């Protein structure tokens, strides 16, 4: 893990055909800063789920500039992923963790992305300003937070 803060940014059309490129970009950075293969896979899946949500739900037909930004911040022992769109946004208070028992009983389709993001990453939060910009921010620690020491 590098000692200085580093930021990587990707601006890309909000289309599902670009998911592969986004995963590759994020996966390569995670690999380079020292995450184990298992965690690289989790980070790739988390960013895929966040971007898929944007691609499926953020923009109405009439919006001309349908892009999303993926930023990766490397800050000592953690990687922060920030996915930003400029679409209609949503109310994060209405997002609830799916009740897995209920879910399995109903065999419900979809809605698994947010559950996965929360499971795969150490922190997930939202900053929603509808029509201005919406962000989901996810953090993965390189080492277990309880044992971590910040080294300058």
């Amino acid at each position: 893990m590098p000692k200085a803060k580093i930021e990587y940014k990707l601006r890309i059309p909000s289309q599902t055909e670009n998911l592969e490129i986004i995963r590759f970009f994020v996966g390569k950075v995670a690999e380079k800063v020292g995450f184990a293969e298992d965690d690289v896979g989790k980070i790739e899946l988390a960013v895929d789920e966040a971007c898929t949500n944007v691609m499926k739900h953020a923009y109405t037909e009439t919006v001309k500039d349908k892009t999303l930004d993926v930023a990766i911040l490397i800050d000592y022992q953690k990687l922060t992923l920030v996915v930003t769109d400029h679409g209609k946004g949503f109310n994060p208070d209405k997002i609830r963790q799916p009740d897995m028992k209920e879910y399995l009983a109903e065999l419900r389709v979809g809605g698994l992305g947010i559950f996965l993001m929360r499971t795969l990453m150490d922190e997930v939060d939202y900053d929603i300003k509808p029509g201005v910009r919406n962000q989901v921010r996810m953090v993965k620690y390189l080492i277990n937070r309880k044992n971590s020491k910040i080294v300058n």
Partner: protein
Amino acid sequence: MENFKVVRLDGVNLTTLKIIGFLDAHTAPTLEEAIQKLLDEEQVNILVDFKELSYISSAGLGVFMGFIEEVRSKNGDIKMCAMSPKIYRVFDLLGFPTIYQIFDKQEEALATFPQNSAASSSE
């Protein structure tokens, strides 16, 4: 750029779908079409071979969820085999092993279908 494909192998009373590449929100409709085609043909005994699948997201998992109820109501099933540990972990995180029968080897899965006559791939 072909990053996902489905190879169909028909047996007598069973069809194996080999899924190859990346299964995400972009490629999920390809799998959806392949399974829908089987249902249109009234083929409800389906084995999905994951051996050459290198990635899956919830959009891919959602495809199976979308069909399982209908398939089972017609006395069929969708079973799965040969997942890499990475793919299995995603299924496991979402509790899918309690819904679907997942086998390590294709032969084990084939043996569990009724009246199956060797629909294994000839690799």
